[in-house]
């Protein structure tokens, strides 16, 4: 892929990442946020957070098993979009669900396990978003950066559990997402066993480079 192609494809991925937000805006403009818009927006942003986390975790398995090294260039953006929708989800919880009622929210985080686990998953994304720049990769060093960014595995599991505990009885969707997370994390487990025997390729940290992590 040429530099130019990469730039344009990144613009495309960026617009794709914004598409769910535009779709939400379009529905709002047309008054199609259901009879309970507060709940709809909360669930919508939550859904997209989880989906994007899973997509970001799918990039490495696809890249390696299909031999598409270029996919790595989009991983950071997908991860940051997951964080972006996670922030929107958090804001809807603070605003649309609780209307800034702090005591209720503190009680929720302490007492309601689905909120506790969802909140934990969100907080874990913050250091990852902060250290997503090339500068931070250099400062931390590839190995440590990699280890830190494996926290996203925990967030993915938190997201699925959060969803699973939230639904009243129809668990089909949370189970489906759980299956996807199992596959992408399971792939890493299997792949790691097969590769640890080989010597690892040294990681050169250039300005634009992102470390090759599984």
């Amino acid at each position: 892929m040429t530099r130019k192609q990469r730039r344009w494809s990144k613009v495309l991925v960026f617009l794709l990442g914004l598409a769910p937000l535009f779709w939400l805006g379009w529905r709002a403009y047309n008054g199609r946020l259901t009879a309970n818009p507060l709940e709809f927006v909360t669930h919508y942003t939550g859904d997209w957070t989880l989906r994007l986390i899973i997509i970001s975790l799918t990039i490495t398995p696809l890249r390696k098993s299909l031999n598409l090294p270029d996919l790595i260039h989009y991983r950071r953006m997908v991860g940051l979009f997951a964080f972006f929708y996670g922030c929107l989800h958090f804001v809807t919880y603070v605003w649309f669900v609780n209307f800034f009622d702090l005591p209720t929210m503190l009680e929720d985080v302490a007492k309601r396990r689905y909120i506790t686990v969802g909140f934990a998953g969100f907080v874990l994304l913050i250091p990852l978003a902060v250290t997503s720049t090339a500068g931070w990769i250099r400062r931390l060093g590839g190995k440590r950066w990699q280890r830190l960014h494996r926290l996203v595995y925990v967030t993915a599991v938190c997201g699925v559990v959060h969803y699973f505990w939230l639904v009243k009885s129809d668990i089909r969707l949370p189970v489906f997402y759980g299956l996807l997370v199992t596959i992408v994390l399971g792939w890493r487990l299997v792949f790691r066993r097969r590769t640890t025997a080989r010597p690892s390729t040294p990681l050169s940290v250039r300005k634009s480079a992102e470390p090759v992590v599984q």
Partner: protein
Amino acid sequence: MLIKKPADLLYSEVTPKSLYFNRRQLLAGVPAAFLAGSELLSPTRRALANTKLNAAKSPFSTTEKVTPEDAVTHYNNYYEFGTGKEEPAELTKRYKIPAQWIVSVEGDVAKPRKYSVDDLMKLAPLEERIYRHRCVERWSIVVPWIGFSLSNLLKQVEPTSDAKFVAFETLYDSKQMLSPREAGIPLPYVEGLRLDEAMHPLALLCFGMYGETLPMQDGAPVRMVLPWKYGFKSIKSIVKIKLVKSQPPATWNEYAANEYGFYSNVNPNRDHPRWSQKKENRLGEFGLRNTLMFNGYNEVASLYNGMDLLRYY
């Protein structure tokens, strides 16, 4: 020869609104008339076609702002027709309701009887009751229901001294509805009340809303409305009412007893294990209101004298 004056216009003889509005189309095409004709044969199907109902005003009505009909009919919990809020309105469009809907009233009663919906509706004068309706999921609506107190029916079948509870059952058709596995709850849907709760004048046997017969997604042709309890207690599309000696099973209570009690009175002091019940979002409002004990229907408080409502939630 005495010519007998015909009885009052039967509910089943009222032209359904959909047919009335489509009457030109009926003339326009024979096939359309044929299809509509088959609809004319079934009183129950007709009962579902948004027929206008005349109802007297009721002193039980709240003066609060009524939630728009469109919101109420497109935001339903009716798991037999999908677990999403907008699914029931969609999936019930394809649903074929039984040609003759029968409600069997049985059990510990002196006069058990199978009622058609027409018969049931004639038991007492219809009233319009504008009730607050609070869902266990923290949202609420205000709905103008049409019906009469369930006590009218119960008195007619004469409960015996053994009867202590009333068990309700919703129609279940596995061919046209979600399986219990898909819905995640046991089906058919069942609910229950203590007899004194069921006899309370607020307990409404409901046939309509917003001036018309109930749409399917809101529990046609006949449902219960219990405004002081969480919404899931107000069972929809009833086919059986049985008076029994001991506490009958209730679907959500069977599913998760710690989350959904048998009584399930609206109670801001008893949190759902997964969320607080202190506040609620009235659909259409941007903000929260305080949830009131018994949803503001304090006239039912005497039913629970001496009961610890945190224990019997």
